[in-house]
């Protein structure tokens, strides 16, 4: 028997780590991984609430979140490759102009 709040605290901690990484990291790939960490934190609270309220649709929503995350990762990493090809850097501080 684990209190629901423990799951929510773990989920919130993962989300907070994701936000921190998004703020302090300067490598564009690591920033992207922080976003995945945030999505994982949200998924954990989805599953915890699904078990709490006996609603299986919570787990189906986790599935949808994963599909969207996979699509996002594919497109995002392609964008990172395109950015690296034109700028030759992965540091977001150096990608500060829309035009070359």
């Amino acid at each position: 028997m684990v209190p629901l709040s423990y799951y929510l605290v773990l989920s919130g901690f993962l989300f907070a780590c994701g936000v921190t990484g998004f703020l302090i990291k300067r490598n564009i790939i690591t920033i992207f991984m922080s976003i995945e960490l945030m999505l994982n934190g949200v998924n954990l609270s989805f599953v915890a609430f699904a078990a709490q309220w006996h609603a299986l649709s919570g787990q189906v929503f986790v599935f949808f979140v994963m599909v969207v995350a996979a699509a996002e990762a594919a497109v995002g990493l392609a964008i990172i490759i395109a950015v690296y090809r034109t700028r030759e850097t992965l540091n977001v501080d150096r990608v500060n102009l829309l035009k070359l």
Partner: protein
Amino acid sequence: MLHLILFSVFGLICAAAAVNLLVQSHPINSALSLVVVMGSLAVEYLLLGAEFVAAVQVIVYAGAIMVLFVFVIMLLNAGKEERTKGSRVSLFIGIPGVTIGSVLMAWVLITHSGTRSVEAGALPGDPRQIAQLLFHQFLLPFEVTSILVLIAIMGAVVLAARPEALQPTEEKN
């Protein structure tokens, strides 16, 4: 009791790997700690009885998505990240801000969410029931996500291909 012990052990592993992701300066180390986070989260899902979600977590997240990340890190030969002035400002504002926010959130969750608890395997999320839901109640969203994935595949190919590779080539006679 066993449930609580397993939850604590894998929760601590998960939290430690998440912190390690932030501390490491090389992206490949961050990627490997993210794999640990996802693997231990899969165990947490199993504890909650969500077998299907746990399997998909390992296959899609820890498998497919992380392979994509590691592949891009190696393709771009990403090294240690360099620190600039802006990043130091975000370090000093971001870490205290997030710490205060998460401590407040944890306090509110622990004190105000009551004494309800989740039993191990309270909700059997086996693939058959998930499929019932997915292909009846959520059929339209499911089809829409399939279109989304299709568009994402095409977008990724167009974005990642070299510009000259997309030009129509003249046919050789």
